[in-house]
């Protein structure tokens, strides 16, 4: 590998609203809604798009190769199209792939489409089918686990940990309430911490229903252009500085006596080191993190920001991660608010880009956002980490 060939800017973002009631649209129509919005946001027509990349969770809607059917709505008729499906990270992988495709010089303008219509499928079945049919499929009964909670509780004690996790959840909901597209906006208040801890049904261990992510329907579209085209087509392109994808064999055994380094930590270490960023908490202005549950979200703050001991709990307790805090976390509400899985990881980059542009509307961070971080997560502990910049001119990196 070597250095980036040319810069790539995000010039268009389109999203549908996220809900679990989209009976009035079929899948191509839902895709089409996001496509039209993305094109309108970019101010371009289909004729200016060179290639379309499409992704969602394989077989979650019980349709094989849905990108073919979705041509009815995606605008891919007569164009080159690629399909990418990498589990929960699909949306983020689409962003990385679009970056690679445009940076390489093969295409000047790429449109990426991420979507999910979980109402039309069977999520649990889809996840269970990921396990190998000879052994693990018999054991696996869904994607839920309480092990994230028990790890945090073992380290910091039940009371502090549970409060921090509930605090996290309520903060995410408060952010979601500012985002008109978010699926679940429950209207939670901080004085409900005690009552929610007592009343929300326990799913597995200390993982309660309230902590869990949503199951949403929706689509997200992002349009990427080469530096030259991005500058010509957009007043405020958001630049992709760097990204990393980490999927490591050690993660296979996170429940043994020796716990390996998480892919989150590995990704953050590698990415920030090669970009000369010693202190990510200071450097970034916003972090859209893929948080499948409040417990994981809480735990991964430490992993991603390379913190130690209880620094992440302190950040939570001091309110540093709120909209007006030191490092706003998920101003969009995150994955606990909206989770159209094939789009979810892309939403992180899309929402981070909206913050950089100043276009996030009701959930816009008030201070200037120059440096944004977005993460994607997949069920096999796969991590994608993406860095976005408002201005060009960062130090070039050798990917080694």
């Amino acid at each position, binding site marked *: 590998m070597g250095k980036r060939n040319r810069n790539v800017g995000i010039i268009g973002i389109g999203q549908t609203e996220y*809900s*679990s*009631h989209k*009976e*009035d649209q079929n899948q191509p129509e839902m895709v089409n809604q996001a496509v039209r919005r993305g094109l309108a946001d970019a101010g371009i027509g289909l004729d200016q798009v060179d290639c379309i990349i499409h992704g969602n969770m394989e077989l979650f809607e*019980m349709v094989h190769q849905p990108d073919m059917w979705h041509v009815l709505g995606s605008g891919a008729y007569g164009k080159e199209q690629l399909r990418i499906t990498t589990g929960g990270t699909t949306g983020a992988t689409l962003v990385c792939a679009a970056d690679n495709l445009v940076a390489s010089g093969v295409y000047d303008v790429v449109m990426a489409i991420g979507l999910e219509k979980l109402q039309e499928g*069977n999520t*649990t*079945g889809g996840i*269970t*089918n990921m396990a190998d*049919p*000879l*052994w693990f*499929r*018999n*054991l696996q*009964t*869904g994607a*839920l*686990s*309480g*092990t994230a909670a*028990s790890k945090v509780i073992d380290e910091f004690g039940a009371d502090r940990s549970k409060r921090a996790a509930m605090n996290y959840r309520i903060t995410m909901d408060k952010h979601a309430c500012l985002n008109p597209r978010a699926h*679940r906006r*429950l209207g939670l208040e901080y004085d409900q911490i005690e009552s929610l801890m007592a*009343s*929300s*049904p*326990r*799913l*597995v*261990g200390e993982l*309660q*229903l*309230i902590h*869990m992510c949503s*199951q949403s329907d929706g689509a997200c579209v992002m349009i990427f252009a080469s530096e030259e085209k991005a500058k010509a087509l957009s007043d405020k392109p958001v630049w992709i500085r760097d990204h990393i994808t980490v999927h490591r*064999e*050690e993660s*296979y*055994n*996170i*429940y*043994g*006596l*020796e716990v*390996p380094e998480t892919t989150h930590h590995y990704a953050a270490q590698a990415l920030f080191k090669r970009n000369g960023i010693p202190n990510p908490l200071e450097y970034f202005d916003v972090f859209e993190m893929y948080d499948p549950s409040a417990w994981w979200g809480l735990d991964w703050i430490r992993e991603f920001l390379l913190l130690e001991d209880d620094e992440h709990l302190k950040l939570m307790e001091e309110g540093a991660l709120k909209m007006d805090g030191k490092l706003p976390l998920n101003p969009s509400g995150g994955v606990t608010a909206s989770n159209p899985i094939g789009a979810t990881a892309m939403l992180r980059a899309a929402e981070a880009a909206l913050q950089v542009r100043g276009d996030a509307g009701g959930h816009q961070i008030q201070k200037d956002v120059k440096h944004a971080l977005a993460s994607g997560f997949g069920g096999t502990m796969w991590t994608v980490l993406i860095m976005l910049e408002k201005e060009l001119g960062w130090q070039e990196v050798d990917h080694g």
Partner: protein
Amino acid sequence: MGEYDGVKVENIFNTMEKRFISLGALGVDAVIGYKITGDHGGTWKLTISDGTMDLQVVQGALEGCTTEIIADAEAFVGVNVGKFSVADAMAGGRLSIEGDATVIGNILPKIFLPFIEDIAGGEQGEELICLSCVPTIRQRFATGPVMGKWLKGLGEKKFYANRCPKCGRTQTPPREICADCRVRCTEFAQVGPGGTVTLIDKVMFASPDPLTGKVRSTPYAMIFMVLDGCTPGDSFSHELKRSDIDRIQSGMKVRPVWAEERTGGYNDLLYFEIDQ
């Protein structure tokens, strides 16, 4: 208030016949009780059998139901008109389910078209077609020699892990390659039969098994362990004996419990129990 956006509980029940999809109800046998509290509340019993539905208003107690849905009227209507999900209503303590909960996700959407509010007051609302189906695909999986040895070993009450010739780590169940070292692991090692527990997952809310539609009765517990003889990073997981759920702690020793009759396959290993 007992209603949501002008839609009352009775609207939901009055339209059930019209929204019923008899094709989706073939092969379904369920008796679903509804206990709705608050204004416009009441008790209903819905019997689905042989592709037909029968809805009765109930005075007094519900009996003979395979599932009971208990909710306040506003929440019940809210869920039915799509304002929020069943999960959210449950999280907020406004809806609870007794008995077979899978009915909510697996059966109801198949047998009823969604409730669409009447528009233009009193006129027939827009009907939206929703089809349900259960595609079933038969599959046959080749085990290969490595998983084949593991599965057959279960028939002999043995666990066959394999070992990497380069780094020495074990893999349980065995995998052909050590992905760290990228070499073939041709040496098998008998491990266990007992092990040490590392983590415990106590499951209160079970997801249905898509292969059978069945749901394990809850609570049940999955334990993660390192079998004796395995390298420390090599974890294994299985179900814990139900009567041990309250006693189990990380660090305890466990041993396997085998089926009386074994065929050399997955079902030979029933669960693990605390080894005292």
